[in-house]
């Protein structure tokens, strides 16, 4: 743990602690039930996005089956909640996470031999097939088109306002723990192996790191978190329908990840916040929400590659370079690494 947190400067520490304290105290001061519901829903989506960002952005595996994993986590957790009532609800949520992790690891196996676009096709088709089967479920496990039967949830004894606050804090804790774990994981052995496999698979394998086990680990961890998000969603909303893994939630989540910045630590947080604000602002024009989000997604990919987090880190780099130039005008300014010059056009380095 030391490696991550000792690297933070004092200013960043203050910012981080301040943000955590503010986020913790927020529901004490704020009570509007409508916006609290919006915020808690966004928190659950954020947990899902953190898990997806881990496998998609950091590990660089084109997994587009994450929403099915998420829904399966909800079904797994819900099954425990309904059929094994002696299990405490938090444990049932963990069971949902474990079930999702198992499915995710199973999904990882066929993708081991696949590259890039084939992985995305296989996992995308996986999510569509899971949705199709859940919708036409012959065994009655998922509730089909009507959705999963109501579950008691985490706080069956509390009033609506208190339980909203409870969910807020539970989700915030999950977010804080998972983000801290990711920050630690990024500089751990596994995190470095993941990034190096993403950037240079052949070289990494030649250095004795097994790409398969690393990929399976990435799928398992991300699936676990997605399953927890799914179970939390089920507890909070009291129900889950198959439309949760449809194309429109998927497009919203992809938009969040890309707007925030794929593969960055703060990307999901920024993206989820921005998109939730846009969605809430457009609530009176429900038909135009996705159209506008799709257009924003397109514009961000074309004009702001790396998303908002990428743009912020680029501009702070530029400011630092400018400051360093002023302080020490004799030495040459550190070159700002422009992403355009990192690699040549893909068309020139292709050998067939």
């Amino acid at each position, binding site marked *: 743990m030391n490696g991550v947190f000792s690297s933070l400067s004092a200013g960043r520490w203050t910012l981080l602690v301040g943000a955590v304290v503010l986020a913790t105290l927020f529901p004490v001061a704020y009570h509007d039930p409508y916006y609290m519901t919006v915020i808690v829903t966004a928190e659950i989506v954020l947990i899902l996005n953190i898990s997806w960002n881990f496998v998609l952005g950091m590990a660089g595996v*084109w997994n587009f089956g994450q929403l099915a994993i998420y829904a399966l986590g909800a079904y797994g957790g819900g099954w425990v909640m309904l059929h094994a009532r002696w299990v405490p609800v938090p444990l049932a949520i963990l069971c949902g996470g474990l079930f999702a992790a198992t499915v995710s690891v199973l999904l990882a196996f*066929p993708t081991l*031999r*696949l*590259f*890039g*676009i*084939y992985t*995305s*096709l*296989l996992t*995308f*088709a*996986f999510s*569509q*097939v899971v949705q*199709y*089967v859940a919708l*036409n479920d*012959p065994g009655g496990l998922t509730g089909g088109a009507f959705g999963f039967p109501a579950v008691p949830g985490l706080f069956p004894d509390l009033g609506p306002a208190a339980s909203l606050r409870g969910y807020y804090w539970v989700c915030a804790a999950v977010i804080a723990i998972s983000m801290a774990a990711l920050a630690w994981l990024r500089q751990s052995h596994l995190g470095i192996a993941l990034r190096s496999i993403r950037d240079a698979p052949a070289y990494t394998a030649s250095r004795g790191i097994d790409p398969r086990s690393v990929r399976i680990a990435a799928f398992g961890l991300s699936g676990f978190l997605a399953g927890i998000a799914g179970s939390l969603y089920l507890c909070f909303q009291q129900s889950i329908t198959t439309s949760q893994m449809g*194309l*429109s939630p998927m*497009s919203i989540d*992809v*938009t969040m990840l*890309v707007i925030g910045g*794929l*593969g960055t630590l703060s990307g999901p947080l920024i993206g989820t916040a921005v998109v939730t604000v846009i969605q809430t602002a457009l609530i009176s024009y429900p*038909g*135009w*929400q*996705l*159209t506008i*989000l*799709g*257009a924003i*997604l*397109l514009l961000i*990919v*074309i004009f702001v*590659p*790396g998303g908002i987090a*990428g743009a912020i880190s680029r501009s702070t780099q530029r400011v630092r370079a400018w400051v360093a130039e002023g302080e020490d005008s004799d030495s040459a300014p550190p070159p700002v690494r422009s*992403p*355009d010059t*990192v*690699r*040549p*056009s*893909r*068309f*020139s380095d*292709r*050998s*067939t």
Partner: protein
Amino acid sequence: MTDFVAILTSALVYGSIYGLVAIGMSLIYGTLRILDMSQGSMVMVGGYVGWSALVKYGANPVVALVLAFVATFALGTITELISVQPLIGRRRDLDFEMVTFITTFAVAIVLTNVALQHFGPFQKNVPPIVAGSLHVYKGVSISYHELTMAGISIALIAALGLFLGRTRWGLAIRAVAQDIDAARSVAVPVTRLYPATMGLASGLAGVGGVFLAALYFASPTAGDLPLLQALIVVVLGGLGSLIGTLYAAYLVGLMQSLCEVEIGTTWSLPILYGAILLVLVVRPNGLKGSPSAARL
């Protein structure tokens, strides 16, 4: 025997329409190295153009098909100009295939929701192109509409083959697919070829959309299932391989009709998916694809 004939006829019909939608995807991947996620929306748009022409204005079916082709050709060209052209040669934080996967997906989102706004969520009935049906064998009959669909699909795929094999533009497209640098060095206008290729593929999907709309309905989400099926077909056949796509289309059609006759419709998609999974575990690049690692 009846089962056998039924399976074969529906395999022919399904396979032809899958081939028509999927071959465009494979062509685009072979030429541009992008997976066009807007292909499903083109099926949807084709369905709505067919509905407008046939039901709203009472036009001739041939006119409807041509209109659908022209409209989706134009839309495909515009899609390429908006979502792919600005990204060419700008390999930034994400690689080209991933970025274009996302941008074409974004176009699909926008198209679906614009259709939802303009036409509403209700399904539109589209009449068959040709009424009536043909009796094939004891109890097995095939509607003329399906027969026309299979016939026109096969004719279009054959025409595409001729276009790619005999004409100047077709040869240029194949040259780019094989070796882009060599194609550039003999003055193939690569940047002008891209929109045309995507337009062509979208046009084929649009024609397929008119037929599919008469089989099912025209609705904003009418493109989702064809997209999924086309994805399964191109993965099975190997991206970029047109012959492989064609084989895979009929194979998928056969498997689907087999499942539907013997087991039931509910399980046909999962079983198909399981089969694809097995194929990919054994052959990671599909039946006819070349290793993608060599291209990257």
